[in-house]
């Protein structure tokens, strides 16, 4: 349990956070933690009772299993903690160089103090938060990648504090005495660009100096680290409920026995017959005390009904079972050479429970470099009469207006390799890369940035140089970015690129019309659109802008606002030169996967930062919405503007609510971020607090919900909202970007896609898969199987302990309620840890009651296990009755057998230990064979373990009874087992009893088989006869399937038709259609999604 935090910490470990134990405190602390668990504590109490009170069984019988369980758990946790220590040491013990007295001193990174001047070399990670003082490059810049922090793998430029830039050697840096705080008069402005955060990595810069400002727990990374709360699975809750039932049974039994004992003993010759006198001590104790100890003794005697080894088995099952997910070859991705990753083994079975909940998928585009940019004449109509010049300008704009960097060959996390090229483009936004590559297709290649000159190779293979003067960075509010460059001829140009809504108001109005049509059409088709505009600046204008920009950058207060204002002023009165469209190509098998999830009864919610049109068409493309789906829109468009918003929203909600109650129609809901915040945080007035519930009701009625323009926090909000609805559905979030992390952490099960946007999502997730399509197998096959396995495991455990203890309970009625154990102590001890533990463990690891292929191909099977179906009270009662039945059969079978004078052919008689041994033998065989009956998937391991356990039991019994053990006080079992086997009647009785016990089970299997066959036959007939349409149960899904296939085909040609000659149109207005891979997932929405949308 505690181990969870370890794994999710990953690289983020920080000394005070992660390891829980040291070598010294491991034992006490771990024991304390373990005994905080109710079950363990219970067994500890039982153990102590056994030590203190005179109980029927020796303390060993419950002490040994408890010791075993505790040891196994301790080893597991110790191992995990060791891993944490190791990860910590990597970070904390790594050496850093600290400049002291003009000399480099080597220090361990955990010993850095605030104020130390630290030297960091290229490709090293910053050991703490630093103020950037100087770098090896004279201009005082350095490049940093924050891939491990937020998943953005591009290089960000950071600037040294201006006054210290020159101090670029050890000696020089030592002369720095002024402290920033003490120098209020010479105020320097420090911004984020001066701060180097712990965890980020220095790139492309030889070395830098920085002064440590925050260390340890105070670093931004540590502060941002969201402690991951422990996720508990529904199964565990069921287990606890069952435990309580069994605890009640236990208490009930003990009470009944104690009461009856004293009723029985009220007869003096029963209490103390002449042949069986009490000891002096017994006679002298008070009656109340005696009753109490009797009660405790019965508790001890029956305590095995609470399966001591269940927890450890469940834990082992989860721990080992998670390997099966990571080993799954089908979930191995060739491209990134990685398979699935399991960060939390505690939730395996929860994967099989997602059915009721929502799959929150964040859609966001991601580019794959291997996808070739295709030029599309989707809008072939020339927009402005500017001729080819305009086209070139457009391409130049694409080449210049971006923040793409060139990375030589060397791989950086999250990059795409270009085998044929010596370099790759890297950028925070895949769209930018797509656009640059698109331009390259048309002959304009961006060659990189050198000394502030951007080099471009144009169509004629000449190199053009542009001096980069300013980059007006992208921000989510403006939703655009600009660059100001000076051409080689001295002209000053400003290129601006951004979302249509932010560009159109800033360009000549007459230019808009035509472009708008194309943009809208492209957006409808699911492309991500951007508009590009430019303007020429005069020297005078530029000077003013330059000055203003510098001023704003230096401003100490309201810097953001000032900057925004300057940007706003600068990016005005531009000329529209064109629009781009980037296609997100859906990740392979995305649609099929979503369809399968749908069929499995899951509600799919798409949470994306994209604009509505794009998201909507994507949803169509991935079949989330079908043509037959009626869409209910709750967006800025339908709700309208300003004041009347709330009323209008209210009306809409009510209307949709009414609509959604008619079941005949499938509904899809679209909602955008602003409307959602209106619903979730309504203004005080209007009695609109019930918006939320109405909204939820609508949502639950809809087959699919699309939420666009979501901020990361909103995503988490939605997940929380769904989580807390009635029936508390199990939610699953899947995403691949840093902005999905909050959502992934919030959901019951968080899945990260090992995307190209860094590892943030996969690191914080419970499971990480390489591709979205793997979700299908993960849920439908693994999830289903794990759920079935663990449910069976839990039920089986309760069952086997019930029929273990029931005969013991019944025996009390025949031994004067004297707490005489039926079984020998060795059997009591070994039953749960040796004789019956391994078969069920093997079963719970390997069982496939339905083959994986069937499971993946028939999503409807998933619904069978939804709602925790196998751990509801009905199956629990079934198992309990089965256990009780078998317990009765065992005991009374042998009881009647013992009515006979002698069971041996030489007339000799058996004693009470033989009685118990016969019951126990029948028990072990029945319980194991029952499991064998349940096993549908036999591997050599199952055979080995099942038959091995039985053989071990027989062997052990011989061995245990074959020797006079000097350490035992009583040789109760001496040759009891061997003698038992010499009796033919015993053999016959054992076989008979095993058969009777299993009889209901066998009968059930036979009946089920008949039913299934019957079913199959009927299905077959339905399928192959003209009657088929009359069988509504089966076909709707099928027909739906075909319907959409048709739709999809229609959709594809629409696209295929587009590649026609660009040259024909001589289009000025180029719509570059870059085909992108859709990685559905995540989304970087705040930082990446929006950037993706606008800045590129």
């Amino acid at each position, binding site marked *: 349990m505690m181990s969870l935090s370890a794994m999710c910490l990953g690289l983020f470990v920080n000394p005070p956070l992660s390891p829980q134990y040291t070598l010294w405190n491991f034992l006490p602390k771990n024991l304390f933690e373990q005994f905080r668990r109710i079950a363990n504590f219970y067994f500890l109490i039982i153990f102590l009772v056994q030590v203190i009170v005179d109980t029927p069984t020796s303390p060993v019988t419950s002490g040994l299993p408890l010791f075993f369980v505790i040891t196994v758990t301790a080893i597991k946790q110790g191992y995990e903690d060791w891993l944490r220590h190791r990860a910590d040491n990597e970070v904390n013990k790594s050496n850093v160089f600290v400049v002291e007295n003009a000399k480099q001193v080597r220090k361990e990174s955990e010993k850095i103090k605030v104020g130390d001047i630290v030297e960091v070399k290229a490709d090293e990670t910053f050991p703490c938060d630093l103020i950037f003082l100087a770098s090896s490059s004279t201009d005082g810049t350095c490049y940093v990648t924050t891939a491990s922090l937020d998943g953005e793998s591009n290089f960000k430029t950071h600037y040294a504090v201006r006054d210290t830039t020159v101090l670029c050697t050890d000696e020089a840096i030592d002369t720095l005495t002024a402290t920033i705080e003490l120098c209020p008069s010479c105020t320097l402005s420090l911004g984020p660009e001066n701060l180097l955060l712990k965890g980020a990595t220095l790139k492309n810069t030889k070395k830098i100096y920085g002064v440590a400002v925050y260390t340890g727990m105070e670093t931004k990374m540590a502060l941002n680290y969201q402690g991951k709360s422990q996720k508990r699975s529904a199964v565990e809750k069921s287990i606890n409920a069952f435990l309580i039932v069994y605890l009640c049974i236990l208490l009930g039994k003990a009470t009944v026995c104690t009461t009856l004992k004293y009723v029985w003993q009220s007869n003096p010759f029963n209490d103390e017959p002449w042949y*069986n006198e009490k000891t002096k001590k017994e006679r002298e104790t008070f009656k109340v005390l005696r009753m109490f100890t009797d009660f405790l003794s019965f508790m001890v005697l029956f305590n095995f009904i609470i399966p001591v080894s269940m927890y450890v088995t469940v834990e082992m099952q989860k721990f080992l079972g998670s390997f099966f997910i990571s080993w799954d070859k089908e979930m191995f991705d060739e491209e990134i050479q990685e398979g699935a990753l399991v960060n939390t083994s505690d939730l395996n079975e929860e994967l099989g429970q997602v059915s009721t909940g929502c799959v929150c998928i964040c859609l966001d585009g991601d580019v794959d470099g291997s996808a070739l940019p295709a030029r599309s004449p989707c809008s072939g109509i020339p927009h402005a009469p500017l001729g080819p010049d305009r086209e070139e300008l457009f391409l130049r704009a694409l080449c210049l207006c971006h923040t793409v960097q060139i990375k030589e060959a060397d791989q950086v996390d999250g990059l795409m390799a270009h085998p044929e090229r010596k370099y790759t483009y890297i950028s925070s936004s895949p769209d930018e890369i797509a656009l640059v590559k698109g331009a390259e297709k048309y002959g304009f290649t961006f060659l990189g940035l050198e000394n502030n000159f951007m080099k471009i190779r144009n169509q004629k293979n000449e190199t053009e140089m542009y001096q980069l003067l300013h980059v007006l960075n992208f921000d989510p509010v403006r939703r655009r970015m600009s660059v100001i460059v000076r051409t080689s001829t001295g002209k000053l140009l400003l290129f601006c690129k951004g979302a249509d809504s932010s560009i159109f108001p800033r360009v000549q109005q007459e230019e808009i019309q035509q472009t708008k049509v194309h943009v809208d059409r492209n957006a409808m088709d699911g492309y991500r659109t951007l508009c590009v505009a430019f303007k020429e600046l005069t020297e005078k204008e530029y000077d003013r802008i330059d000055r203003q920009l510098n001023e704003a950058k230096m401003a100490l207060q309201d810097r953001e606002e000032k900057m925004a204002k300057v940007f706003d002023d600068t990016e005005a009165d531009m000329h529209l030169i064109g629009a781009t469209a980037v296609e997100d190509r859906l990740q392979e098998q995305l649609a099929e996967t979503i369809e399968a999830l749908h069929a499995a009864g899951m509600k799919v919610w798409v949470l994306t930062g994209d604009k509505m049109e794009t998201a909507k068409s994507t949803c169509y493309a991935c079949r989330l919405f079908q043509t037959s789906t009626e869409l209910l829109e709750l967006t800025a468009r339908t709700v309208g503007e300003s004041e009347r918003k709330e009323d209008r929203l209210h009306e809409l909600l009510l209307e949709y609510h009414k609509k959604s109650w008619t079941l005949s129609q499938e509904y899809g809901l679209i909602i955008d971020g602003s409307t959602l915040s209106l619903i979730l945080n309504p203004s005080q007035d209007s009695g609109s607090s019930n918006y939320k519930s109405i909204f939820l009701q609508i949502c639950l009625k809809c087959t699919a919900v699309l939420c666009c323009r979501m901020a990361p926090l909103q995503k988490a909000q939605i997940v929380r909202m769904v989580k807390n609805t009635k029936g508390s559905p199990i939610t699953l979030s899947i995403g691949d970007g840093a902005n999905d992390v909050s959502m992934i952490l919030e959901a019951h099960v968080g899945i990260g896609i090992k995307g190209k946007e860094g590892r943030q999502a996969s690191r914080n997730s419970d499971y990480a898969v390489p591709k979205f399509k793997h979700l299908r197998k993960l849920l439908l096959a693994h999830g289903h199987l794990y759920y079935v396995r663990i449910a069976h495991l839990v039920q089986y455990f309760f069952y086997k302990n019930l029929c273990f203890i029931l005969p013991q309970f019944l025996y009390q009625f025949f031994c004067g309620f004297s707490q005489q154990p039926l079984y020998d102590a060795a059997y009591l001890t070994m039953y749960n840890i040796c004789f019956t533990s391994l078969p069920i463990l093997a079963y719970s690891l390997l069982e496939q009651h339905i083959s994986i292929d069937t499971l993946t191909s028939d999503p409807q099977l998933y619904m069978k296990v939804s709602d925790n179906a196998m751990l509801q009270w009905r199956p629990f009662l079934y198992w309990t009755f089965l256990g009780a039945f078998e317990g009765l059969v065992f005991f009374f079978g042998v009881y009647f057998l013992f009515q006979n004078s002698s069971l041996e052919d030489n007339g000799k008689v058996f004693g009470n230990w033989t009685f118990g041994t016969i019951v126990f033998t029948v028990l072990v065989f029945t319980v194991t064979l029952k499991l064998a009956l349940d096993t549908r998937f036999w591997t050599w391991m199952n055979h080995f373990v099942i038959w091995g356990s039985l053989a071990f039991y027989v062997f052990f019994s011989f061995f245990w009874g074959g020797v006079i053990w000097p350490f035992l006080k009583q040789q109760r079992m001496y040759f009891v087992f061997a003698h038992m086997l010499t009796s033919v009647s015993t053999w016959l009785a054992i076989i008979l009893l095993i058969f009777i016990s299993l009889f209901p089970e066998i009968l059930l299997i036979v009946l089920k088989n008949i039913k299934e066959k019957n079913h199959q036959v009927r299905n077959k007939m339905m399928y192959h006869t003209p009657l088929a349409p009359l069988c509504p149960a089966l076909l709707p899904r099928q027909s739906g399937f075909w319907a959409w296939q048709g739709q999809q085909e229609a959709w594809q040609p629409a696209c295929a038709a587009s590649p026609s000659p660009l040259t024909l149109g001589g289009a000025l207005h180029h719509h570059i259609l870059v085909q992108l891979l859709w990685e559905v997932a995540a989304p970087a929405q705040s930082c990446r999604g929006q950037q993706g949308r606008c800045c590129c």
Partner: protein
Amino acid sequence: IKPSSPCNKCLNVSWDSTPPCTCTINFTLEHSFESNVFMYYGLSNFYQNHRRYVKSRDDSQLNGDNSSLLNPSKECEPYRTNEDKPIAPCGAIANSMFNDTLELYRIDNDTRTPITLIKKGIAWWTDKNVKFRNPTGDGNNLTALFQGTTKPVNWPKPVYMLDSEPDNNGFINEDFIVWMRTAALPTFRKLYRLIERKNNFQPTLQAGKYSLDIAYNYPVHSFDGRKRMILSTISWMGGKNPFLGIAYITVGSICFFLGVVLLFIHHKYGNRNTSADIPN
């Protein structure tokens, strides 16, 4: 086989009454017993499986361990020591050993012919030879070996005087060993004697009148118990056991019935199955 009448007078005997109260019970065998006959005594309402009782023994003492002989286990309380001397064998089980003497006579024309009762071969071989051993020491004189111990409170004689034969005396006395194997249920039987078939021409016990002489020492009335004597023959699968037979017959017939039903169902659906396959 315990009519209460003739022995009623003995109901209130105590352990050490000397001479013992004796009584005779007459009975008639309807059929002759052809093969070896096993003679059991049965007790009812005697909780030999009571926990306090079951654990009240010292197996290492019974195994001939000399130190345990003189210092029995605490489990034997309150039958551990008597007058500061260790009890051998200690414990409640040993103390309450069945000590009635049964003798069987065949009454043939008013002459009572005693029937030979064999008292060896009634205990488990492993018990007699491994688990139970007399203490070891110089010589074979049991009296000397048990020096320093005292007899169980209820016993009339010490343990080394249980039988005249040395290989059936002391801890390895078979009656004693049989008694020490505690019964599973409060109503139980224990093997008392064997009656071997003498020759092939005569049944072991002919039909006719018999009388059983009982030296009544063992009080059961105080706990509402009863005593019985059972004569039984044994087949290859043990004594007469109606349970197994009935159970097998019941289960067998249920299975057969279900088998027929299922066969019928299978037949029915099998037909449908084939007919459905044809369109394929």
